[in-house]
């Protein structure tokens, strides 16, 4: 993990450090300034201290020399002298002067031409000089143009001359010159000559050079004309006086230092003899107008200052470092968990919900955040789980809906309810949400078809489940009880018994007798069906609706009936049809439905449903379908077969139980009146035999039929022909149908000596009547044996008829015995 320069820790640290830097900078600046000032003050004080004694000493000496000069000048003007007097005077003066100021090395007089003692014309210059051992008198000449003489003569005032190395005193000397006057006739002062006191300044060099100054400093004396006259020997280093120039630093430039126009004392930065930069304190030597300086090389001078700065800087840096570390620690303390949280969040983003949220101690904001984050994770996880659950539930609901819909019968073929006496088509378009519409159709027996349509209140899973239960109970009840009303009553009871959600279902169900078109029906609060008659007229079936199912346990439904004519179509529907709503909130409605059915003309059942749906679509346009749209249409084709009242009894034909059968019939007939009895006597006796489809069972069937027919005393021929027919039909079933079970129903009608044999097999659909008859005129070589058996049957029997009834083939033959 590298250091993140854009991280919180770094930014924070940087900002705090910047602030601290500014504070430190300010403190440092102020401290520096203060220190500078203090140091300057200290330096000045130091300089003053160093200077004071020396300047005083120098002043004292020079002032003494000056006084000597003044004193001597007075003596000279008071007394006119001879040459020897002058010599004595000079020697005496020098002696006296040296007693006062040992640095005095000569006393000199020089006169204007012709003005000297015993000198009527020409120069006169005489001096007494001390040369370290003795005193000598010397005569000088050519002085009138010399600086010391000329300046004093012309200025007519006494003064200190710039030091020079004398003609007679071979060492640097400072000379104090005093003009000499004499009163003329008019009493006015006339300049007659100049007196000079020569003072060696060698001592200055020694004295000044040896003055101890702190911090490697030294002292320096310059004349009024800024000529250095006293300085440490080290400074000379072969340089001449005039090379030792004091310069002042002004900005970046160095200019020659001049005390003129400045305070009598002060401090400046500059150089001496082009040496290193120094701090220089100067003060005026009043007696000579010379300058006394104390010089500290700047390095040394700054040493304290920089030492202090260094110390401060060091402390600052130390503090800086400590603060930096502390900030980093704090920042990392803050940033690290944040970083970890960010990492966790990233993992989370990738879908890893098991990511560990770093545990935070304490109760600071970061810990709080981590806690919140952890909470968020948990809740997110829960939510996603919930979402997943929801998704799963939704998927499962879809699945449930699919199962639910797929359990509804699709085609009659699948339900094995198809035959030629009717035609039927269901239609169910589910709404988006799971709904509770259903339809059903099934055969109760060969001749009775039950049709059901229903609508469970509400939507969703509950409705769907309820619908399935209702449908299954109703179907089972109807099949077992063979009565709509009984089935309704029982189903209602079963549903109402445990109906804690108070759901209910509207149902319309009818049992159609496929032979007659008679419908027994009942309605549990459902819309009355529409009938489209063969002639194109339409009407609602007068249907008295009972209470919806599952509402009350003890509801009793009323059986109603309706007679369908040949070609009538019964149209069942749910309110998804009549309550289809358009954008103007108008319902499709009963009238429009009637109109639509009427318009459908003689369309078959499937197309009738589709047509209604199209009309609904036209009506609602783009308004989404809210409810399931469910329809079921049945067309009654009718049947030409005679219809008999039907009584059923199953007996075992293997034993001798003909009497049982007889009493069964008698029991039915006895209560009947004459005509009816006559009719009933004409009824068919019915026998049934079920066998597995294996060739050997043909004998069983033959024996079964012979056993029934023999007592009827028919002709042998008919008996034989029936046997052949059994042989042909059964062997066909065995060979070609793939059936596993054959039911043979033998019906005999004693009145007319007629027998009817109905072969019911569960094999693949096969209508033998439709087969082409074999050509029986061909010669033997060209004959095909196939189809001959059925051909024989057709030829020898009175009638042969076929019906595909559900999953069975029904082949019936009749024969007069």
């Amino acid at each position, binding site marked *: 993990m590298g250091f993140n320069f854009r991280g919180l820790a770094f930014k924070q640290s940087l900002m705090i450090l910047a602030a601290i830097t500014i504070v430190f900078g300010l403190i440092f600046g102020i401290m520096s300034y203060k220190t500078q000032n203090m140091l300057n003050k200290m330096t000045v004080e130091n300089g003053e201290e160093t200077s004071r004694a020396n300047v005083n000493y120098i002043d004292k000496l020079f002032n003494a020399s000056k006084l000597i000069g003044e004193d001597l000048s007075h003596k000279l003007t008071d007394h006119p002298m001879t040459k020897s007097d002058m010599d004595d005077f000079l020697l005496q003066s020098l002696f006296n002067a040296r007693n006062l100021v040992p640095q005095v090395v000569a006393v000199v007089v020089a006169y204007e031409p012709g003005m000297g003692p015993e000198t009527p014309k020409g120069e006169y210059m005489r001096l007494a000089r001390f040369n370290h051992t003795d005193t000598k008198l010397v005569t000088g000449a050519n002085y009138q143009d010399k600086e010391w003489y000329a300046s004093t003569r012309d200025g007519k005032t006494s003064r200190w001359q710039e030091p020079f190395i004398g003609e007679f005193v071979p060492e640097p000397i400072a000379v104090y010159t005093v003009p000499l006057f004499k009163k003329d006739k008019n009493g006015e002062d006339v300049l007659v000559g100049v007196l000079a006191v020569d003072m060696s300044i060698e001592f200055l060099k020694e004295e000044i050079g040896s003055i101890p100054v702190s911090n490697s400093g030294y002292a320096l004396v310059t004349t009024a004309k800024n000529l250095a006259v006293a300085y440490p020997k080290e400074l000379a280093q072969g340089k001449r006086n005039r090379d030792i120039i004091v310069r002042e630093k002004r900005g970046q430039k160095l200019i020659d230092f001049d005390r003129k126009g400045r305070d009598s004392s002060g401090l400046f930065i500059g150089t001496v003899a082009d040496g290193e930069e120094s701090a220089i304190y100067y003060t005026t030597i009043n007696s000579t107008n010379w300058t006394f300086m104390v010089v500290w090389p700047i390095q040394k001078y700054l040493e304290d200052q920089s030492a202090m700065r260094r110390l401060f800087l060091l402390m600052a840096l130390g503090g800086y470092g400590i603060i930096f570390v502390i900030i980093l620690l704090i920042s990392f303390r803050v940033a690290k968990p944040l970083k970890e949280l960010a990492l966790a969040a990233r993992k989370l983003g990738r879908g890893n919900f098991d990511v560990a949220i770093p545990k935070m101690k304490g109760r600071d904001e970061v810990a709080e955040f981590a806690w919140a984050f952890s909470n968020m994770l948990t809740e997110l996880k829960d939510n996603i789980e919930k979402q997943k659950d929801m998704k799963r539930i939704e998927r499962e609901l879809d699945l449930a809906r699919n199962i639910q819909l797929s359990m509804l019968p699709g085609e009659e073929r699948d339900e094995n309810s198809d035959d030629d006496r009717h035609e039927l088509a269901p239609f169910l378009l589910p709404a988006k949400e799971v709904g509770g519409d259903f339809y059903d159709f099934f055969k109760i027996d060969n001749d009775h078809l039950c049709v059901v349509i229903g609508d469970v209140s509400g939507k969703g899973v509950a409705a769907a489940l309820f619908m399935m239960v209702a449908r299954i109970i109703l179907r089972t009840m109807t099949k077992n009880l063979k009565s709509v009303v009984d089935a309704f009553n029982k189903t209602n009871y079963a549903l109402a018994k445990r109906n804690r959600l108070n759901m209910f279902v509207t149902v319309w169900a009818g049992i159609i007798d496929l032979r007659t078109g008679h419908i027994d029906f009942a309605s549990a609060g459902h819309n009355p069906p529409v009938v489209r008659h063969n002639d194109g007229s339409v009407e609602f079936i007068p249907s008295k609706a009972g209470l919806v199912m599952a509402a009350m346990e003890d509801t009793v439904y009323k059986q109603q009936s309706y007679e369908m004519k040949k070609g009538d179509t019964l149209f069942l529907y749910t309110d998804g049809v009549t309550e289809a709503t358009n954008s103007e909130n108008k319902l499709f409605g009963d009238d429009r439905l009637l109109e639509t059915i009427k318009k459908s003309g003689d369309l078959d059942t499937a197309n009738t449903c589709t047509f209604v749906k199209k009309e609904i679509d036209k009506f609602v346009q783009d308004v989404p379908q809210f409810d399931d749209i469910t329809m079921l249409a049945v067309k009654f084709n009718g049947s030409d077969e005679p219809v008999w009242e039907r009584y059923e009894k199953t007996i075992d034909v293997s034993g001798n139980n003909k009497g049982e059968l007889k009493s069964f019939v008698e029991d039915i007939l006895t209560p009947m009146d004459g005509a009816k009895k006559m009719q009933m006597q004409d009824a068919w006796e019915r026998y049934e035999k079920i066998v597995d489809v294996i*060739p*050997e069972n*043909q*004998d069983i069937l033959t024996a079964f039929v012979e056993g029934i027919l023999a007592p009827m005393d028919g002709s*042998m*021929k008919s008996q*034989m*022909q029936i*046997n*052949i027919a059994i*042989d*042909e039909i*059964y*062997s066909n079933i*065995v060979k070609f149908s793939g059936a596993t079970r054959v039911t043979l129903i033998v019906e005999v009608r004693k009145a007319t000596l007629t027998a009817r044999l109905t072969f019911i097999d569960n094999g693949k659909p096969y209508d033998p009547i439709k087969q082409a008859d074999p050509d*029986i*005129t*061909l*010669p*033997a*070589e060209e*004959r095909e*044996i196939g189809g*001959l*058996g059925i*051909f*024989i049957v057709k*030829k*020898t029997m009175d009638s042969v008829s076929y019906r595909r009834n559900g999953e069975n083939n029904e082949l019936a033959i009749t024969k007069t015995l």
Partner: protein
Amino acid sequence: MQITKTNDNDSLTIALKGRLDTLTAPQLDAEIQGKLDGVKSLVFDFKSLDYISSAGLRILLMAQKVMNKQGSMVVKNASSEIKEIFEVTGFCDILTIE
């Protein structure tokens, strides 16, 4: 069904008793199939035959086809019921019925 075969040189008489139907036809088929070599005259005696179904007709047709090539075939003593079957199926046109 009972099958009685009587051989006399190149003539063969087959007498049937009972029913010649789907169940019994295979027996007859087994007696005839490949056993007519050298037979010039084949006689079916249906005196005791109760009835015949299309399965029996099939065997008669097969035998007739064979005998058309090597000799003659006669059906004797058929009952009127059986004759009626021959009538309706057009077998009376291809069989020699005496």
